[in-house]
């Protein structure tokens, strides 16, 4: 089946080569980082996690978001998703691989990575994160590959795959819950120490993942002979809309608790992110933009005539993706370290090699999506013909 990825137009191959160049550049930068150390990044004693972990956190969400097409199809027999579930699963595969790569590039001694298996530590949330992420990757490979293979052969999906599909649903919830627990259980980091962290992570995940899926499916619809079906895309759009509203609501809850209680520790990071604190506020324009863009996206999705317009739908999906990305892929992780335990402020500026490496991992994700989607679309086109 995978051989279908080897036949494509010159545009397809051009895109692949472009991605390989991006990945190659990042790989060189990574070799440099491996030789010199993580000192080549903008991270410091105060901001000890940066772009890598922030992107990791965001893409766990994208991976978990895939479940939003799995649930309607397999729990509610929503047949309009029949043809696109595999795209959700393949997107999840790419996102999980990105997550694992972001972890690998972030650790100081990657050659000792297997110590996590050699000395399993059940009281560390990272231990569970390793289990759930690798498990989710495996589940999606099993489910995605086998359902597509069955479609290709024109036979129903084999029965033994079903249990894996059902397991993958709570498993998707678990990956983002555990990722939220990485943060929500740390004393002394007030911004992260909130019981609403996991629900908020899930809400933003169910907005971001499906939003990305909408953008890709709209693109697929334009450039290939396979039509995912506008009805299906509209249903995903509604999911994104509800999830994004929930996400913004949870954000509002955080604001209320902090500012109504007036407890300084609860307000400091929000101050830094949205108003500036002690003269520091480099992220303020971005964070404010995230709120505006997010609200704008919700507005577009809420009004049915606008949502049904393909172009506006693309804009809405992009808005939600960008808004959640700024919120979770930048502000959440960096903000947690500001102010530091001494209530002083160090700001964070990612360096060029750091960004090159992160971009390369985006490139790997894009490459996996491209190849897997090429296979899936070829199968769908063949089915239609």
């Amino acid at each position, binding site marked *: 089946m995978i051989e279908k990825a080897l036949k494509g137009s010159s545009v397809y191959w051009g895109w692949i080569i472009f991605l390989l160049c991006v990945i190659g550049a990042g790989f060189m930068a990574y070799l440099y980082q491996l030789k*010199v*150390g*993580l*000192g080549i*990044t903008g*991270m*410091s*004693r*105060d901001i*000890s*996690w940066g772009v890598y972990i922030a992107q990791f956190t965001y893409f766990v969400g994208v991976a978990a978001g895939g479940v939003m097409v799995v649930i309607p199809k397999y729990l509610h027999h929503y047949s309009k998703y029949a043809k696109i579930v595999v795209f959700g699963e393949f997107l999840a595969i790419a996102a999980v691989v990105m997550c694992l790569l972001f*972890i690998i590039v*972030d*650790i*100081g*001694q*990657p050659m*000792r*990575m297997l*110590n*996590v298996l*050699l*000395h399993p*530590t059940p*009281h*560390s*949330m*990272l*231990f569970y994160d*390793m289990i759930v992420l690798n498990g989710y990757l495996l589940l999606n490979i099993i489910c995605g590959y086998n359902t597509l293979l069955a479609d290709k052969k024109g036979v129903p999906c084999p029965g033994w795959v079903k249990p894996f599909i059902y397991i993958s649903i709570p498993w998707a919830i678990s990956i983002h819950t555990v990722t939220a627990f*990485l*943060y929500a*259980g*740390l*004393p*002394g*980091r007030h911004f992260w120490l909130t019981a609403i962290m996991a629900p908020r992570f899930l809400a933003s995940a169910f907005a971001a993942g499906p939003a990305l899926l909408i953008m890709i499916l709209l693109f697929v619809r334009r450039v290939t002979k396979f039509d995912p079906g506008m009805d299906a895309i509209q249903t995903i759009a509604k999911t994104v809309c509800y999830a994004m509203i929930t996400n913004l609501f949870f954000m509002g809850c955080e604001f209320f608790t902090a500012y109504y209680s007036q407890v300084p*520790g609860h307000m400091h990071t929000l101050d830094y992110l949205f108003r500036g604190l002690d003269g520091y506020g480099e992220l303020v324009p971005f964070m404010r933009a995230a709120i505006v863009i997010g609200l704008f996206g919700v507005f577009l999705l809420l009004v049915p005539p606008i949502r049904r317009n393909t172009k506006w739908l693309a804009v809405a999906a992009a808005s939600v993706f960008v808004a959640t990305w700024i919120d979770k892929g930048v502000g959440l992780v960096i903000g*947690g*370290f500001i102010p*530091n*335990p*001494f*209530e*002083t402020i*160090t700001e964070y500026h990612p360096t060029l090699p750091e960004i090159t490496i992160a971009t390369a991992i985006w490139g790997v994700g894009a490459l996996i999506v491209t190849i897997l989607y090429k296979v899936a679309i070829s199968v769908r086109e063949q089915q239609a013909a």
Partner: protein
Amino acid sequence: MSMDRRKFLKAAGLTTLVGLGGKGVFELLKPGAVEAEMTHGGHGEEGHGEKDAGPKVRWAMLIDVMALNKEKIEKIVHTCHHLHNVPNWGDPKNEIMWIWEDEYEHVFPDSYNEYNHILNGMPFLLMCNHCDNPPCVRVCPVQATFRRPDGIVAQDYHRCIGCRFCMAACPYGSRSFNWLDPRVHLEKEIAEGRKLNKRFPTRMRGVVEKCNFCVERLAEGKPPGCVEVAPDVMFFGNLADPNSNVRKILKERISLRRKLELGTKPSVFYLI
């Protein structure tokens, strides 16, 4: 092959008595102190079966802030960083700190009081708190950082994978990461006249480090380096023993501990 706590303490005491007598600042050195520790059993044979018997050794550090001055701070920091070959990067981005100075309002940001003219601006010494309930140990995925039975939160540089989860978890900012190769900088410093302590290793890039309460010196029956050079400022002893030097001092002085509301139970006390 491994040895229980009793034998360990006996051995530590023996080395002490043979080679290093006369340094009265360190509780273990006092005649009878070692035996006193041992009669409690520690985690040795007698320890088994006694359900309510808590740990019998819990090392603690008392810092007399009122006796601190610039000169002593410099001496203490220099001694510690020399003993453990901590490079002096001189920039906050790569900084490695085992013990360092900061003002009251940064050490106790939660109890800052703008009218407290006595404490505000006063220099404090910061170090790892060797918490009784350490969040860093809870989050470490490989047990590279762990709590020894004597309360010392140790760091195994051989095992650390450099994920820096412990740095995010530590509410005291006590942990430093080797963003670059510390040896590269140490070599530069050696060229400028720095002396290396060849009895203690360096670290490698990509691992986290912090104050270790001088376990390597305790093993030899010596007091921590900071206590040795400033015996009128730093006091080290067994918090679990009601008759220890530190418990006696704590009975008489007002003491502060950092961020108690987080439930970490620090083993470093500030005397005011």
